Each structure stands twice: as structure tokens, then as C-alpha cells.
């Protein structure tokens, strides 16, 4: 059993990130065969296996960063002592305790390790020289463990992969046949990312929804009264700005909706960074208004139109789309009266704003016409219960229906 360590690839290097494993648990690996790739600063490096054997454990997964000299994997049945002179017989790979590795593939016979004293045919010598091979990693199948041309070919072809048993899901009828009346197009990078992100979220969060109906009469009146004044200052006073302001203030009251789940811990985020989904011709993007609760309504108006415009012109910078803690999406733009959005990970809640339409409602036993909208909160039941979701929407409803004019 030997440990594979995160190598120190330079004096000033303290840690490394594993970007790819070329082998998995149960795979056999030869000494000096590429085992994993690491990334540090501007350099990616392929790391060879320090030993031959079977991988019994991988401790550091792809994407994880660990300090140098950390054990990243263990290899059993190693041919320790490569410096020995005579042919050494490799002990049968020990069954390591407590680690569920697939059984070691049978080697068939004793596996002598070639050393320089072993006879090599001229063709094998030539191959070894041409490929710069280390003989200790090659199993000899010839007489007395002699390495044959076929052994070298097998070695160069790489170890046989363990083919997983086909799962039912893998057997799927073709979606179309040649000649069918279809058009097939490669997904754009953005399309692929959205697809990944949405499925990941559905697998991650326990989505539930609550819908409240909100009377926009007061906000509509205030918007009408102040629109011209805002416009004179270069700000477009929109319903979205009112909603963003009310949501930010409500999140300050309801920290559980401005949080993330990290294993069995809850991460409450003090910053309120509102993502506002913007539909593009193809796909969508969610620019973020940072510290939205600290911005005046006018600043929110300016931020929202700036971000939306830059999103459509593809001029957003990376920091414009990072760090969101809650998302507002607006199916109402396209006439949707409500929607059931998917949470943007690692957030725990998302608000879908339905269209604001004049509807007949009953107020004080009178049927009156009011501008109304359905607001649907999608939230992660792992963290937020129905009562909390209701409290959030109730508080939001109150803020909008009784909008405090001094905030204008």
C-alpha cells in the first residue's frame, strides 16, 4: 500500500487543484503512467503514478484544492523498491481493510518485474528506447517473465478499463432516424450551462411554492405621479424597481430566504445581492444588483436598466453576474400571470413576478377594478418551511400595498 501525494511542483507552490483523474478506484495503474492532472495558477500538469498497483481509494475529488503533500489517493499491491537488482516477485495485491475496491483483476501468473538483467529482444529494446519506457511497470508474459513485444504493445495501449454494466437508462431508442424530418443543432455553450444548472438545482433543492395576490393600485398611482421627475434625472421608474426595493427590504427581515445550505450548516448571507433574470434572444442571464437594500429607489432604477441593457448587448462583466443571494424573475413580461421558477443554486429562494393586470376584486364588500399581480415564491423546503415562505410573501405584499411614500 502506498500513498499518492499532491506534488509540490515548485518552491513557491503551497497547494494544487485536481482538475481530472485519469484513473478510478479499482483501476490498475503502472508506475509513471499519467494518474491525474493538477492546476496551479497558469499551469496545468499531468502527474504520473509514483507506483504500480491498483487504486484503492481516491481522497481528493476533481475540483478540490489541497495543500501540497496531502494524500490524494492510495495504491495497493505496489512494487515497492524499484531499485532492487534481481527480479522480484510482486506479492498478490493485498485486500485492503475497510476499503471497498473492486477485486483486483487476476494477473494469471506470478508477475515478475523486469530488471536490467532480464533479457530483452532487439525489437523490445528498440520499443523501450523509442517510448522512454520504465520496465518496472511492464508485466512480462514470456518465458521466465520475459517481456515480449505484445507486453509492450499492451502496456502502450493502456490498462483495460472496467466497463460498467449497462444501466437501463443507457439503453434508449434513437430519437430520430436518418431521413426523418428533423433539424439537429448543437447546443450553444449558454444552453448547455443553463441545462446543467437547472437539473443540478432540481436535484439539490426540495422546491415548494406559495402564491400571493398583490394589489398594485398604490404603487401604480405613485409611479404615475413621480415618473416625470425621475425621468428628468435620467431614471426610468419601473414596477421592477419598486419590487426590487421591497424584496430587498423584506429579505433583511427574513434572513432565512437570503441564505445557502452547506451540508448540515446554514450560511446566512449578510449582503443582499439581487439577481434579476433578463431574457436574451437566445437563453437568459441573471445580472446582480449588489447591496440592493442599501440603494435608493432611483439608484435601483438606474442599476436595473443599465444591467438589462448591458445584458442584451452582451457587455456584462463577470462580476456583474456573480454573488447573487436571491433572484427575481419576471414571467409577467410575456403576459404570464404566474410561474414556477427553479432556484438558482446555491440560493434558497426565487420570486416569480406575474403580469400586473386590472382585475375585478372585492374590497369592503364592493367589487372594484384594481391592478393586481400574482407573486409566486419558489423556495427550498430543506431550509424554508411553508410558514416562513408565507411570512416572506405577506411582508412583501404589505410593503408594496402600503408603499411608504417617503422612500420615493
Amino acid at each position, binding site marked *: 500500500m502506498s500513498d499518492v501525494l499532491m506534488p509540490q511542483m515548485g*518552491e513557491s507552490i503551497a497547494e494544487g487543484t485536481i482538475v481530472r483523474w485519469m484513473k478510478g478506484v479499482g483501476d490498475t495503474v503502472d508506475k509513471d503512467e499519467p494518474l491525474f492532472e493538477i492546476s496551479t495558477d497558469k*499551469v496545468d500538469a499531468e502527474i504520473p503514478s509514483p507506483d504500480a498497483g491498483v487504486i484503492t481509494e481516491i481522497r481528493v475529488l476533481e475540483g478540490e484544492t489541497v495543500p501540497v503533500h496531502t494524500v490524494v489517493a492510495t495504491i495497493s499491491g505496489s512494487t515497492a523498491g524499484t531499485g532492487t537488482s534481481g527480479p522480484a516477485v510482486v506479492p498478490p495485491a493485498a485486500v485492503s481493510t475497510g476499503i471497498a475496491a473492486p477485486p483486483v483483476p487476476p494477473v494469471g501468473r506470478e508477475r515478475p518485474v523486469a530488471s536490467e538483467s532480464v533479457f530483452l529482444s532487439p525489437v523490445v529494446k528498440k520499443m523501450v528506447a523509442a517510448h*522512454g519506457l520504465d520496465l518496472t511497470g511492464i508485466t512480462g508474459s514470456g518465458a521466465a517473465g520475459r517481456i515480449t513485444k505484445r507486453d509492450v504493445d499492451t502496456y502502450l495501449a493502456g490498462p483495460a478499463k472496467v466497463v460498467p454494466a449497462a444501466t437501463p437508462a443507457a439503453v434508449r431508442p434513437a430519437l430520430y432516424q436518418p431521413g426523418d424530418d428533423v433539424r439537429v443543432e448543437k447546443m450553444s455553450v449558454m444552453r448547455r450551462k443553463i441545462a446543467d444548472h437547472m437539473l443540478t438545482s432540481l436535484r439539490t433543492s426540495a422546491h415548494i411554492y406559495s402564491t400571493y395576490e398583490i394589489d398594485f393600485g398604490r404603487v401604480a398611482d405613485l409611479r404615475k405621479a413621480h415618473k416625470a421627475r425621475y425621468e428628468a434625472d435620467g431614471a426610468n421608474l419601473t414596477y421592477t424597481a419598486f419590487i426590487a426595493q421591497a424584496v430587498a427590504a423584506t429579505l433583511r427581515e427574513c434572513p432565512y430566504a437570503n441564505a445557502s445550505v452547506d451540508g448540515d450548516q446554514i450560511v446566512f448571507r449578510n449582503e443582499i445581492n439581487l439577481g434579476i433574470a433578463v431574457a436574451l434572444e437566445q437563453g437568459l442571464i441573471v445580472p446582480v444588483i449588489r447591496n440592493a437594500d442599501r440603494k435608493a429607489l432611483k439608484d435601483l432604477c438606474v442599476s436595473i436598466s443599465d444591467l438589462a441593457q448591458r445584458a442584451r448587448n452582451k457587455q456584462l462583466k463577470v462580476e456583474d453576474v456573480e454573488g447573487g443571494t436571491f433572484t427575481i424573475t419576471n414571467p409577467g413580461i410575456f403576459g404570464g400571470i404566474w410561474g414556477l421558477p427553479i432556484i438558482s443554486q446555491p440560493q434558497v429562494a426565487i420570486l416569480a413576478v406575474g403580469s400586473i393586470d386590472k382585475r375585478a376584486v372585492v374590497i369592503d364588500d364592493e367589487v372594484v377594478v384594481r391592478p393586481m399581480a400574482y407573486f409566486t415564491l419558489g423556495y427550498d423546503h430543506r431550509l424554508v418551511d411553508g410558514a416562513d415562505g408565507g411570512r416572506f410573501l405577506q411582508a412583501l405584499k404589505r410593503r408594496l400595498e402600503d408603499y411608504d411614500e417617503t422612500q420615493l
Partner: protein
Amino acid sequence: MDYVDAHELQKRLVEERRAGVIGDTLLLVEHPPVITLGARNRIAVSHIIASDEQLAALGVTVHETGRGGDVTYHGPGQLVGYPILDLRPDRCDVHAYVRDLEQGLIVALAAFGIEGVRVPGLSGVWVGETGREEKIAAIGVRISRWITSHGFALNVTTNLDHFRLIVPCGIADREVTSLERVTGRPVAMVDVENAVIAAMRNVFA
């Protein structure tokens, strides 16, 4: 030279260098317009700003590579260098290697009266006033059992507008520049090639 062809050639040269068939080698090429993604390309794809349609209209293709670093752009007027070196036995330090590449480029730029500098934390070679340096050369390296591949890209007369298609190297708040823009006069590619060859020979010999 087409990016994919150059990639294949590099792979072959790495194997030949490993087998000792060739010595340390520097490939110098120019590519048709292409955006390449580093090995961490799950992050890097978000740093492509342009749509697929825009890229297609400009004739820019996108490739995933095995080098370090984020997203970058290559195109005509940019000198791309791929050193295929065996760093064993006495140069086994990936950071020192990157600093050496930067040093070679800084020396080459000096031949054109340009002061190239390093910006701590940001690999590559930069020019301009402190705090607002612009990137003139990008670096992204792959090391496979201490044999190097990929390398650097030095903007000579590059169409800098094409960098607006991406967030270069994932660094959003920095501009890119070129030898031509900094000197304010046309520069012959062959002169730059000679300066880079001389400087790299000096650093790595």
C-alpha cells in the same frame, strides 16, 4: 497554422522530446481566429461573452485544450510560442518556468523599446502605468511529466477588438494591448520572431 493541427504537432513533439528523439524546441506560429479554453473550462465558458452566432459570423472557432489558465483568443498578428522543453533534472519548478517565459518576453519587448512588467498575481506580461497595466502577452502552460507544452501568445498587430468576445483569462477589469499599439508604428512579425527566439535562447540555454 490551424490551432488543432498545432495542438497535434505539439503532442507529437512532447512524445519525441520524452523519448529523447529531439532536444528542447520552440514552435512559433500564428493561428486563424480562435478562442481556446483552459482545462478548467467549466468556469471559462462563462467568460465567452459573444454568442455562437457572433463567433460564427467573425469566423472564430472555439476549442477546449489541456493547458492551464482560463479563456484566451488567438488570431492573425499574434505570435504564439510553444516551447517543448524537458524541465528535468534541474528546472522542475512550474512557477519558475512561468517566470522564465515572462522574462524571455520582457527581454524581447525591450528590443522594441517597450518596458514589459509582471503584475503580482496575474501571469503574463503587461505594459503601462502601475495599476492600469494592459496585457501584451498571455501565458498558459501544460506540463506532462516535466515536458512542457502550450506557452505564450504575444500581441504584435493583433485585432484587439476580438478580445471583446471574451473576458481574457477571466480577468474582467484589465485591457489588452499590442506591440503595434504601444509603439505607435507598424512592426514586422519577422523582427519580433527573431527577438523572441534570441531572448528565449538566452533564458533557457
